[in-house]
């Protein structure tokens, strides 16, 4: 398992659109993907789990990836956050 902590920088925070983009990207990978923020853990492939964390601009969270394609998955998702969900 590998993980990395990132900061959410886009203006709206984890709203439906960015969360949708994140979940779509996460679902392409076989690995288990978990998001941890403020002691809560969410399934990174579940839009409702992810929205339920209520992540706002400036908040930190950790992406944990476990599985065969974990390296590629983590770097894809971290880049997505850093680029503020723009492809």
């Amino acid at each position, binding site marked *: 398992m590998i993980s990395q902590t990132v900061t959410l920088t886009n*203006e*709206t925070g984890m*709203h*439906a*659109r960015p969360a*949708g983009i994140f*979940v779509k990207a996460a679902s392409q990978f076989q690995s288990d993907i978990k998001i941890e923020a403020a002691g809560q853990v969410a*399934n990174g*492939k*579940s*839009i*409702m*789990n992810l*929205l*339920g964390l*209520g992540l*706002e601009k400036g908040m930190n969270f950790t992406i944990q990836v476990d599985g065969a394609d974990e390296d590629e998955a983590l770097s894809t998702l971290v880049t997505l956050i850093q680029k503020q969900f723009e492809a």
Partner: protein
Amino acid sequence: MAPSRSELPLSGTPGSPGFCVGRALVLKHDSLEVEQVAGAGPSQELSRLQNALEQSKIELGRVVEVTRKSMGDDKAQIFEAHLMVLDDPEILAQTEKILNSENSTAEWAFSNVMDHFENVFSSMKNEYMRERAADVRDVKSRVLRHLLNKDVIDLVNLQNEVVLVADDLAPSDTATMNRSKVLGFLTNIGGKTSHSAIMARTLGIPAVVGLKDATEKIKTGDWIAFDGSQGVAYVNPPTALKDQYLGLREEFLNYRKSLLDLVGQKSVTLDDHSVELAANIGTVDDLEFVKKNDAEGVGLLRTEFIYLNRSSFPTEEEQYQSYKRIVEGLKGKPVVIRTLDIGGDKNLSYFDIGKEQNPFLGYRAIRICLRDKPLFHTQLRALLRVAPLGDLRIMFPMISSIEEVVQAKKEVQIVKAQLETEGFRVGNFQIGIMIEVPSAAIMADELAEHVDFFSIGTNDLIQYTCAVDRMNQKIQDLYNPHHPAIFRLINQVIKAGHAKGKWVGMCGEMAGSSEFLAVLVGLELDELSMNPSNILVARKSLRKLKFSDAKNLAKRILSLSDSKQIEEELRKFNSSLEKA
């Protein structure tokens, strides 16, 4: 099969004129309560759920496609979000967990999972997130309806002509419904200025609102006959009555067609006094109605549409593109664009105004813009950038003092200077204000110094002058456009504007009412801006009217002190005009 019940007519508030005969489609949020009973075993129940999810996905996929084609990407996004919820792996995983431990039905387990998600959202601090609870509910009820073998109604996919019967119609309903199949609306709640009523008038379809219990008294499939200008609806009328209404409907449609002969004609009185007849619009899509009804301009573009139904403020570029389409679509005719008018009864999910005791007297419209400069500047930049493309007129809502106008104009100058240093050529445009607060009407002579025009907003002016909440059905009789104070204020504003050489228009509901046309022309308004569907009706009446008679009528109305007398005087004048 039509039931044979026939009852006393239901009565409500006239929402939109016209005769309507058709079968009811009742949109009811009937209970989808499920009970905890033993299921057919976990694996069988899970596959029932999977089937229901699949069916829901196919349906929603179709809704997304149709919505995107007819209404654009923005509207389709609502349903795309619902599709993503259906794909959420946690739904299946958690439902399966419950099924394995409780041996219940799929609907019971699924309901529990969705209720949990709904609670998570509705207990969040952020208002935007709280509103997502409604999306979860929406998806839940769609899937449950499949599990329980109940009908799912997607207005976007209507196949047969129907009369829609609902508690109220939400903007998302009217935005996505298949308009060609909707014959009319009947709603339980709302008044003349409710969304359902305004939308019905825009689409030119009959409606009665405020029927209180229409969804209880009417069943899907019932025959309905109603007259939108009377506010009376018959359920399963006797054949003779139904035939009579079919005849009236035919006449009404012919009348509508005859109005089209007025396209291309001038809006002038018999003695050649011209009045500009302009359109009130709310979205880019309304351009179609502006053209069809031959409006001489746009007298009110409500810019809220750019801000509503989204999750963050629109960017300058997004706004610019929308304004550009409208200003270019008008091909040099005047376009009055009102700056953001939120607050009161219109709120943005992503902008928290906070709870207020009196939202209509609170933080709204220009009051927000003058305190939130980035918000205001973004809109002003987009507006000034479209100035070179046509005849732009910027209008500020809810002005209550000279200081506000001076400050708003200062912000325009700041933005203009910015744009010019960036190399934009801004060009010419007018600046005006809405007169909808009594203090502004009283100070109109001074305000006229600072602006190019006034536009009188009667809906709020009446509510503020008579101190009556126009949404409160209990005191709707006090919301009275015949009040002599209203005519005095209107007269004062027009005189004050003209004394300084400024044009004066009106964009409230009164401007589009045929009852008031003659007196408003007599008071010498230069422009009347109304729902596009009223423009040709107004032109027809105007062309039968003598300006000199209208001026005399206005004089008589101003001399009256009782609203009943005013109503009677107008009725007499209008009926003699109709016979002419």
